[in-house]
């Protein structure tokens, strides 16, 4: 620490201080006045007083007053600064010394600021100020069957801006998409959060001036990267996703490691080729000449679907900036939905009905919003078009955990947590716990472990009018049934079992949706794998397989390719009492229906087809929220795009579009803007036999109802509204499953927040909350905690 001035320091007189300040200010140029901060020590420094400036010392030559000039007041120490010394009695300038550390690093020397520069403060939206910096994802206890991993890389010669990019991405992955921090391998600098243009600690993150959150795994060496690949080779499973982002310098020969070595595109491709088969690989690269990696990445990837994007082509250098790199910044903004400072994006990228941005959409947006004038962003995917169906969030979305398990006419909620499982039922203004069981419980032969059990969907698999719970794990699958106040397990089978011809393997089988595909009043469940597709039906204590077909099969005109086909939703689109399944691909869309031992395809149309006025383009169209919007006994489907929304209905061998409206349309008072609207569940909220769809935005929520060739908004309310006692805030409220929780034809919607849980019911032009309870409430024995409860 500095030598103490002395116990009774001699103050500088106000007149002399004024002279000194005037002199100090007069020496500043106009430019310096705009950037430098001046402060004065209120006390006279004695001759011989010593400042300890980290690795150097500065001794005051004679009794003096001090003006401290900070050249870069927004920068981390050390940086340029000047000590100016003045005669404490006359104010005459004596001498000055330059340094890189201030006199008050440890608070030893008091300073009074008398000149502040003008800073450009980022504009932030108060409601979004820490949007990306505070966890806002819902807990994902049952996501263990689909892991998401990331490798974030800067070299050992990276600048701070590269590290800033990584921190932004890390926050987006963890706080927005729910990546487990332990699944993110940050290889940064020398194993710490540091950079070559920063001496000492990096200080707070430039995004919103808060401490860095990311956890560094190791230093950025080739050996460490290979070690991470080796680790992932043992971890990656067929359903998993891997994101790799490199952000640093690059040469024509490869990705910089340090000032004398690179990882070549060929080397990188070799690293990728050592991984096992998994679902999705996303590689994004900021460094110069990064486009050179596109070919090897797409060629050597062992993932079913691969996306590559880079700031520049193989022959160009990428742009930097004072903070963040322009292309990487834009891409991360696209996936985070916010600027690094927390401001809302003025023109957000298009997203799907759940609000998630695809890799293709994020890269398109980054290209359009890259401020680096010399960047020329590159993009490629394999198979072509797959990037439109790859999201960093869980897809398909988690199965519903709601159903009428006890045939009382009211839907119950299956809730899971790291502790175990429960079934909740609304009773008055609270919930009752019908049953609850901790992990380790045996339901018949099924050993409960919510750490690796995926719960749902719920459906009536045995046709008794009660919903059963489909459950899967790395061991196999089962069906749980609520019976006699407890859960039983009438069916469970391990991996390796043959259901007819279908070989069960939960490592690469994806289950759902469940629906009545054969019209016998019992639900079946669709299953897909890298091999093909099947429909499984409960049959005693095992499952039978009504239909199974390998990839390459033609269902009518539809060519089955499960790696690029997206299935769902299932609904009765033709009113025949059986469920059909919507299928889409980069080629177009179709509707499949069970037909004997195979599937028929009564409708398929390629992209470019006009459904009435709607131009089909699956690269940016989102289909979902199926339901009977017009009460004709057949299901329609909602479709959205960056242009607007529509409702499609099956019409012979094609689709008709009874409603389509562009963004900017007012549905009643609701202003449609698909880039900022998120669609909630479709259900019959008013009990008229037709479904409506919930819609939310940063403004509030509404209910849209088909009204001829447009939509009306019978309910819409802004954030801050009280629905009964529930305070609406779409920033942290999560809309869950809609169902008839209270019985009868009217559906309610489950809503959760960091505060607790509620059930909302439409009441005229607003909502009421017949049930709402805060975290900490006991529902029977179940302790409510929305931080780790999965509904």
């Amino acid at each position, binding site marked *: 620490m500095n030598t103490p001035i002395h116990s009774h320091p001699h103050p500088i007189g106000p007149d002399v201080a004024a002279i000194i300040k005037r002199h100090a200010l007069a020496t500043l140029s106009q430019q310096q006045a705009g950037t430098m901060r001046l402060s004065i020590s209120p006390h006279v420094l004695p001759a011989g007083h010593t400042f300890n400036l980290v690795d150097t010392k500065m001794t005051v030559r004679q009794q003096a007053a001090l003006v401290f000039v900070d*050249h870069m007041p927004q920068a981390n120490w050390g*940086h*340029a*600064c*000047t000590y100016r010394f003045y005669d404490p009695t006359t104010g005459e300038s004596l001498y000055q010394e*330059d340094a*890189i550390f201030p006199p008050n690093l440890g608070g030893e020397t008091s300073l009074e600021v008398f000149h502040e520069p003008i800073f450009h403060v980022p504009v932030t939206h108060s409601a979004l100020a820490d949007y990306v910096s505070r966890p806002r994802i819902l807990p994902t206890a049952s996501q263990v069957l689909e892991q998401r991993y990331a490798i974030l890389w800067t070299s050992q*010669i990276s600048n701070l801006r590269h590290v800033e990019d990584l921190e932004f991405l890390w926050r987006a992955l963890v706080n927005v998409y729910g990546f487990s921090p332990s699944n993110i391998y940050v290889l940064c600098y020398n194993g710490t959060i540091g950079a*070559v*243009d920063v*001496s000492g600690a990096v200080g707070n993150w430039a995004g919103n001036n808060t401490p860095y959150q990311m956890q560094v795994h190791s230093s950025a060496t080739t050996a460490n990267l290979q070690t991470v690949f080796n680790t992932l080779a043992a971890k990656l499973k067929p359903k998993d996703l891997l994101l790799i982002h490199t952000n*640093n*310098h*690059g*040469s*024509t020969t490869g990705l*910089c490691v340090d*000032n*004398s070595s690179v990882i070549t595109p060929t080397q990188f491709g070799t690293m990728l080729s050592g991984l096992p088969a998994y679902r999705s690989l996303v590689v994004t690269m*900021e*460094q*110069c*000449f990064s486009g050179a990696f596109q070919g090897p990445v797409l060629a050597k990837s062992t993932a079913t679907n691969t996306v590559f994007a880079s700031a520049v082509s193989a022959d160009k*250098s*990428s*742009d*930097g*900036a*004072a903070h963040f*790199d322009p292309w990487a910044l834009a891409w991360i903004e696209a996936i985070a939905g916010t600027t690094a400072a927390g401001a809302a994006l003025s023109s957000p990228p298009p997203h799907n009905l759940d609000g998630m941005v695809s890799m293709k959409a994020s890269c398109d947006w980054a290209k359009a919003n890259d401020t680096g004038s*010399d960047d020329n962003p590159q993009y490629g995917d394999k198979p072509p078009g797959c990037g439109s169906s790859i999201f960093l969030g869980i897809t398909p979305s988690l199965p519903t955990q709601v159903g009428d398990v006890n045939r009382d006419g009211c839907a119950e909620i299956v809730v899971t947590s790291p502790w175990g499982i429960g079934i909740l039922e609304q009773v008055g203004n609270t919930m009752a716990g019908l049953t609850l069981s901790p992990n380790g419980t045996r339901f018949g032969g099924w050993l409960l472990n919510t750490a690796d059990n995926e719960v749902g969907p719920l459906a009536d698999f045995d046709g008794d009018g009660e919903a059963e719970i489909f459950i899967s794990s790395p061991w196999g699958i089962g069906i749980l049934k609520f019976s006699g106040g407890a859960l039983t397990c009438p069916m469970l089978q391990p991996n390796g079992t043959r259901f007819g011809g279908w070989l069960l393997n939960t490592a690469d089988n994806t289950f759902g949706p469940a629906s009545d595909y054969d019209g016998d009043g019992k639900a079946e469940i669709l299953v897909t794998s890298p091999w093909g597709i099947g429909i499984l039906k409960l049959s005693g204590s095992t499952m039978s397989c009504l239909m199974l077909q390998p990839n390459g099969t033609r269902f009518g005109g539809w060519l089955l390719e499960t790696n690029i086909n997206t299935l769902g939703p299932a609904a009765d689109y033709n009113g025949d009492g059986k469920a059909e399944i919507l299928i889409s691909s980069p080629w177009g869309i179709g509707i499949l229906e069970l037909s004997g031992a195979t599937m028929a395809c009564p409708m398929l149309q390629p992209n470019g087809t006009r459904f009435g006025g709607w131009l089909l383009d699956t690269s940016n169209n989102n289909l979902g929220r199926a339901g009977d919007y017009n009460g004709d006994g057949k299901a329609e489907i909602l479709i959205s795009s960056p242009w607007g929304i529509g409702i499609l209905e099956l019409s012979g061998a094609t689709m008709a579009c009874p409603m389509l409206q562009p963004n900017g349309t007012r549905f009643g008072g609701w202003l449609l803007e698909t880039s900022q609207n998120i669609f909630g569940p479709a259900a019959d909220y008013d009990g008229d036999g037709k479904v409506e769809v919930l819609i939310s935005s940063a403004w509030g929520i509404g209910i849209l109802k088909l009204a001829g060739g447009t939509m009306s908004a019978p309910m819409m309310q802004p954030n801050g509204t009280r629905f009964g006692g529930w305070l609406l805030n779409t920033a942290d409220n999560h809309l869950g499953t809609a169902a008839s929780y209270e019985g009868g034809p009217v559906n309610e919607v489950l809503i959760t927040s960091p505060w607790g849980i509620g059930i909302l019911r439409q009441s005229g032009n607003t909502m009421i909350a017949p049930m709402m309870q805060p975290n900490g409430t006991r529902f029977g024995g179940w302790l409510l905690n929305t931080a780790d409860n999965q509904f």
Partner: protein
Amino acid sequence: MPPTKSQEQQDFGSVLAFVLAELTDSERAMSVVYLDERIRPSGPGSIAGHEFKRDIPYVIAFIDQRPGANWMHPCRYLLIEPVSGRITTIVSDHPPLFGSLPPTWRAVWRSLGIDDWRLLPISGSPLQEEQTEENS
């Protein structure tokens, strides 16, 4: 013979003049020039991995042709003989080193509109440049 100036006495103004005269039109439009203000002895030398041999003492200048962009990108080094002004060019794509340049380096010229953040950091040098010329 007039006495030879010591390194401390060397006036680098004339060296700078040689460097500025060497700039191309595109460099005048977009570049930053750094000068290592020390005279290097004749004999074998190297800069940024480029090895060479000089018969006469020389000074090194570094011209960053895309200041602020991520490395690697176009740049070049000038080896200047202080008296004669004879210049040898080495084309490169990376800086003298990553991180702060040693304090003998100084940013001596930059094109109009080049922000401070685009300059390479120089250790212990609060004022990175003494001369800024406008690009004409």
